[in-house]
Every structure is written in C-alpha cells, then in structure tokens.
C-alpha cells in the first residue's frame, strides 16, 4: 500500500509542477470557464425576464454549471490522459508500471480530483459573487455525493478512452460527450426514478437537494446516498470493463501506444 501511496504522490507532484509551470495556461482555462458561465447567466436572465422563472433556478444553474465542469474535468482526466499519453509516446511506459495500469489511472484520477477541486472551488466562488445567489456549502454532506457522482464520469472516461485505444482519432465524437454530460447533470432523476440509473444524474439530483434545497445527508437519507454510490461504482466498473475489453483488442491489433 505504501508503494501505491508513492504512486499517488508522484501524480500529485506532477500535477502541481505542471500547474505552476504553466500557470498562465491554468489561469487562462479558468477565465475561459468563467466567461462561458457569464454568458450562460446573461442568457438565462434574459429568458427569466421573459418567462418569469424563480430565483432558485439561478442557484440551480450555478450548481449545475460547476458540477458539469467537475464532471467534465474528471472525464477528461481519464480519456484525455489515455489519448495524450498515447500521442506523446508515454502510454507504453505507464503500461509497464509495477502497479498495473488500472492503479496508475486510479492515481491520476485521484490526483486530478484535488486539482480539479481547487479549480471548481474558485469557479464556484466567482459564480456566487457574480450572481449574488447563495447556496448551502455543507462540505461533509457534499463530499460523498460529489465523489459518487464523479465515479460515473470517470466510468464514461474509461469507456471513451478504451474506444480511443482501438479506433484512434475520434476527437470529434468524444467532444460530444461534454453535451451528454450536460444532459446527465440536468436529467430530472429526483422525479423520474429510472433516470437515477443514468451516470451522474442521481448524484446531481442529490447535490441539488443539499446545495439548493439546504438539506444534509441525514435529511436526504442514507439509503439514497448508498444507492447513488452503488450506481456510481457500477458505472465505473462498466466503463473500466469496456476499457479492458478495448485494451485487449488493441494488444491483439498491436495499436496500444499508437495514436
């Protein structure tokens, strides 16, 4: 387990080094996301003035946007890593790790979670200040819900990463996943029960109950939380299963490290 800790530490260090070394790029990405948010809010307020929807929906927009960014970053931490490492020639080195590639990607996702958390926290603060709305930031209630939600986007990342290993150069299709993630964030899983089985949707609904509805974990009910995490684990395993299947195909075709 100590060796796994060292692996995690190495990925943390790498993330931190690259974040600091290319700080202007990191800050630029955050400014871009913030500008997109401003455009969304501008558009939303225009629509609200026309149809007269309530102020709580703006809170939903803030929460939904920030959650979408978190999910998108997690998805990209998996898919984009596979693609970039293959493109840059380092994927094969990671495959020869003493830990196994699954652990390597796990360490990458966990390290990415913390750097994404910083980015999302800054974005959320900026969004709340800009819109003037307030949301319930109950950290200990949100932590398991966010983790459970992100398991689904990591699962999607593995599935898309696996398909990339076999088919290569499918960027135009993989970009569509970001729109799929918007749909999953917005799916009314609170009202329509079968939608809870979709990746990330159940978690998104529960996060809204905490942040917008002001509830905590005990008010939501541990049964809901456990079910949501189980579904998230299921999506992660399914995505990883697809990845392993594709990896096997790539190893037969001899295209594992190609891009």
């Amino acid at each position, binding site marked *: 387990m100590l060796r796994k800790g060292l692996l995690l530490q190495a990925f943390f260090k790498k993330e931190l*080094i690259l974040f600091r070394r290319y700080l202007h790029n990191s800050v630029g990405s955050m400014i871009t996301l913030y500008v997109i948010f401003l455009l969304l809010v501008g558009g939303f307020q225009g629509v609200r003035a026309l149809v007269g929807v309530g102020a709580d929906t703006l809170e939903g927009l803030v929460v939904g946007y920030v959650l979408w960014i978190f999910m998108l970053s997690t998805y990209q931490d998996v898919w984009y890593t596979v693609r970039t490492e293959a493109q840059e020639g380092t994927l094969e080195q990671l495959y020869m790790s003493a830990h196994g590639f699954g652990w390597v990607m796990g360490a990458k996702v966990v390290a990415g979670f913390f750097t994404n958390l910083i980015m999302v926290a800054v974005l959320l603060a900026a969004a709340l200040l800009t819109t003037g709305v307030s949301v319930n930031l109950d950290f200990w209630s949100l932590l398991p819900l966010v983790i459970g939600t992100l398991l689904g986007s990591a699962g999607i990342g593995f599935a898309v990463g696996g398909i990339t290993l076999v088919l290569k150069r499918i960027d135009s299709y993989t970009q569509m996943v970001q729109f799929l993630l918007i749909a999953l964030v917005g799916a009314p899983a609170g009202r329509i029960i079968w939608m809870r089985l979709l990746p990330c949707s159940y978690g998104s609904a529960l996060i809204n109950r905490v942040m917008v509805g002001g509830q905590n974990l005990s008010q939501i009910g541990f049964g809901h939380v456990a079910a949501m995490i189980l579904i998230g684990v299921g999506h992660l395993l399914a995505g990883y299963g697809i990845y392993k299947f594709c990896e096997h195909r790539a190893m037969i075709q001899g295209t594992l490290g190609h891009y």
Partner: protein
Amino acid sequence: MIQVEALEKVYPGRKGQAGVKAVDNISFGVHEGELLGFLGPNGAGKTTTVKMLCGLIRPSSGRIFINGIDLLQRRISALADVSAVLEGNRNIYWRLTAQENLEFFAAVRGLNPARLRNEIGYYLKLFNLTEKRDVEARKLSRGMQQKLAIAVALISQSKVVLLDEPTLGLDVQASYEIRQLLKQIVKEQGRTVILTTHDMNVVQDACQRVIIVNEGRIVANDSVHNLLDLFKVKVYRITVQGGLTAEQRQALLAMEEVIIEEESPIQTAISVRLEESQILYRVIGVLESNHSPIESIDQDQNNFERVFLQILEGGSQGA
C-alpha cells in the same frame, strides 16, 4: 533470463482480408548480462517481438518467460524485471525536467524516489546530464533526450532493458556516446540489454550476440565474432586512373565477384571479393589489357553491415 518459445504473431486483417504474419514461430534465449542485437530489415518483426517481450502486444501463440515467470500468465510480476525505451525520446515527459522525469518514472515502477537520490545523481552524471537536471526535457537536444529516456529505463533497476532503435536520428557523436554507455551498463551492472537497430556500428561495437530476423523468422543467431568469421571474405578495392573501355567493362562484369563501384573519365573504383586467389590476377589482366594505370590496391575490412546483407540475401545459417 529471457526464454522465448515458438512465438508467433498474426495481426488480424481488415474485413475480408487475410491477417499479416509479423512473427513466425521464433524461439531464442537471452542470458543474464548479455547485450543482444536484434536485427532485421524494416517490417521483419523486430519491434513486434520487442513489444511482445514488454507485454504490450499479445502473441497469437507461443510463450515468453522472464526470469522464469510466464509473461502471458503473470504479466505484472514478469514485467517487474523489464524496462524499455520503445519510442526513443518520446518515452519521457517533455514538460518535466530531467530530474523530475527520473523521479516520476521511479515511482511508476514502484520505487521511492526519495530513497533514490544517489541513483538519480549517478545516472544524471553517467549520462552527462547533471548540468541539465533542472532543464525541461523539451529544451534538451535529441541526443540528450534519448540518453534521458535510457536513464529513465535504468532507474527502475530492472534486470532486463529493451531498447528499440536507441541511436535512431542521432549524430555520430551522440550515437557513439550511447553505445559506450550501453557497454558500460552491461559490464558494470550486469544488466541484460536487447536492442534493435539499423546502425551496424552499434552492433559491431557493442553487441555480444545478434539475432537476425527476416520476414518474421530468425535467419541467424550467433555471436558477432562468429558471424564475422563465418562470412569472412577478403575484399580488395582497386582504383584505376581514367575510365574503362567497353570490352574491359564487359569482361569485369562477367565476373560475379567484381563490382564496379564508381566510374568516371578521371577515376574508376572496382571492388573484388577474393573467394579464390586467381580472381585478382584475372581482374588485373583485364585492366592491363588496355594499359589502364592502377593507382592503388587496398584491402577492405569485412564489417558487420556486409555480413548482415549477405545473411539477408540468402547466406543464412540455422538459428
């Protein structure tokens, strides 16, 4: 150290097309502390074989044992003793420094970088990278990047190091430095190194044994010394002032052992393989027939490039 048994790889064909056999039933062993050259023309199956040894390509049939561990059954355990440089200078992170690359990949290989300070310092020094330790890899020369990639492979302390074209694209100086380093690593650390290369200087200078593959099959498997001996042919290079007459050219080309290497009105160079002693006299006789002034007669040294080409042209011997 490595045992390969009846290894075969057929890449699946596209819809309706037959598969491509890249490796055809090859078997060989590699001893501990051996520097083995794995040679062959493009498309011979070298890289496929090396990638199968790294567990990155799945063989169609056959078995690979590394340190007695079946690679196909226990991939991670078997690979604990293997490191590789497969994509040359692309096997490192270009946005990390030399030291950061060594530390990161040590952790990926299950080692504690904090306890490897001395080793990291040692490899930076060995590869002449100490002054560049804090320079991002993208800012290093290609030769330095290549050396860093090899250092990254060595930091894992694996017993087997696989290098695919380690001197590709390097200038003479960098190529020389790398082959000296490889010899040093094998001699001082007892590592087993398998390298694929098109650079026959590397083979002749550094390798103890070579396996030559062609069309997926092993066509030669012997020590460099034995192969040079086996294909020992004295080659003489005769330089003549001026050109040749049509009759001289026709007479020389009728001899299988003769190649007219260059011909101009000023000078003509002819190489003669001395497979029987009379051939040189016959060539000189042809040249004297028209009083062509012989400027020099030099003996060419037999080199591994010529041996390699002869083996590929059909002078193969049992693997």
